């Protein structure tokens, strides 16, 4: 897919939770946004933040084709993301996109997919859920967070499937961690997709491997370029070092060395 670099304009800024912003962006000249696929990401340039030298990789949260908007859900964790979160409607951000590969979306109609997101790792699951539902896949989401304030976009998720939640303090859904949620025992899935903190993904991966369920994970290794030229972001796989930015970020669990 052809990559583009362009300034996008913030058309709306929302606060879906404490410390998170949702930026909805569009082109400056009314042209159509490039095609983007679930699992892909963008590299956002951060201006006027002296401690932020490199761009910041942010997942495609959703593509609203009707309005020509791309959504970025950003957790304000350090200087770069705080600066992005301080921008306002009308401001421009230089964005490189689309980057990386995509989740598998051509599943058989009627098959059951579980989309597991922890923390801001829920971000790519929204667009993935929408794409899977459009293909007639039966979608369930399992979303986990520290507390209710960090459970984001639940209304949006509900449009595409059943939503199961866990919070560490029990303020929403089942109390505890994602990997203990009852849905994992009560239902059978054909496919699992996951993005989030590595320990969570590894636990989900173990569950998938034990149950022999196909599983794709989206990794968030530290990146310098985001488009496959610096070789900084590698994950060691069964085929050697692979770039998370260009060979990933989505990997089939069978390719990774997590089980060994």
């Amino acid at each position: 897919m052809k990559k583009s670099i362009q300034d996008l304009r913030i058309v709306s800024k929302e606060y879906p939770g404490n410390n998170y912003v949702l930026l909805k962006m569009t082109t400056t000249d009314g042209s159509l946004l490039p095609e983007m696929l679930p699992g892909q990401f963008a590299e956002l340039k951060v201006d006027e933040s002296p401690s932020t030298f490199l761009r910041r990789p942010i997942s495609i949260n959703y593509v609203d084709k009707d309005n020509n908007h791309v959504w970025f859900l950003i957790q304000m964790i350090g200087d770069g993301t705080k600066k992005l979160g301080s921008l306002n409607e009308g401001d421009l951000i230089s964005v490189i996109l689309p980057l990386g590969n995509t989740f598998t979306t051509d599943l058989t109609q009627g098959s059951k997919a579980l989309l597991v997101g922890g923390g801001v790792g829920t971000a790519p699951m929204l667009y993935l859920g929408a794409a899977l539902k459009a293909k007639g896949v039966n979608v369930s989401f399992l979303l986990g967070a520290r507390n209710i304030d960090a459970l984001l976009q639940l209304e949006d998720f509900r449009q595409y499937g059943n939503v199961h939640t866990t919070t560490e303090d029990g303020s929403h859904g089942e109390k505890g961690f994602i990997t203990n949620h009852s849905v994992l025992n009560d239902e059978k899935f054909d496919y699992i997709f996951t993005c989030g903190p590595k320990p969570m993904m590894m636990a989900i991966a173990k569950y998938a491997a034990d149950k022999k369920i196909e599983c794709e994970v989206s990794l968030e290794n530290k990146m310098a370029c985001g488009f496959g030229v610096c070789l900084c972001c590698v994950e060691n796989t069964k085929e050697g070092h692979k770039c998370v930015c260009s060979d990933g970020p989505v990997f089939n669990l069978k390719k990774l060395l997590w089980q060994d």
Partner: protein
Amino acid sequence: MARLDVKIGNLELKNPVMTASGTFGYGIEFADFIDLNRLGGFIVKGTTLKHREGNPYPRMAEVPMGMLNAVGLQNKGIDYFAENIYPELKDFDTNVIINVSGSTIEDYVATAEKCNALENIPAIELNISCPNVKEGGMAFGTSTKSAEDVVSAVRKAYDKTLIVKLSPNVSDIASIAKAAEAAGADSVSLINTLLGMAVDAEKRTPLLSTVTGGMSGAAVKPIALRMVWQVFNAVKIPVIGLGGIMNATDAIEFLLCGATGVQLGTANFIDPQITVKVIDGINEYLDRQGCKDVNEIIGALKV
């Protein structure tokens, strides 16, 4: 519109702007962003005789106005390059240069010989300055004796333009440059990355798997400029300047300090179109300064 073409050895460049090895992939990755034919040249990833997996993750740490890397020359080897990558690169209307690395003199020579056979590769850049591999690499670039040994051995095996890339991790870079010149280098390029380190205080761990790594980016520019100036005053062969160039003004500063060509490295990560912007910016500067030819400003620093 001033003349922008420069010569480095037998190499004719349509303008002084090239890209730095390891920051530009094989060039093709940038084809969506720029017209590669506009570049004076581009230098592909560090290439070794045999396939190398490189260092374990994590390999990158951001630092104020720069970054550290510890990639460790991950590449598929010169044969893979010749068979699979070269066919895609050979018809570009620009100079495609291979950055050659090794851990023994024999490796360097064998790789250079294979490069010699690639018709549309007009030059190699001998990397005697990689701080990220245990054996060799930088070791060759840190003493005049070993620099001379490896350069003269490669010189015998390679008859096109030979550029030697110098390490800044030395106390007297001019003496290494002179050794490379005496051994037959057509040009020297500098600087490679500066050996650095970054620490996670909370976890009490280094941020790189290799503990130390190579620093690049805006923060290294003053050191790179100083070294280019020193080397320019010490050798007769053309100097290629790099290290921390983020825009046209930075590039012009290197030209004024004596660089005949420049390379852009880390800046490509932040703006993949930076190379063409720098070419345009140099042109505008020359017009503004009333210069007809970029060669008028090379080494034209008033001191």
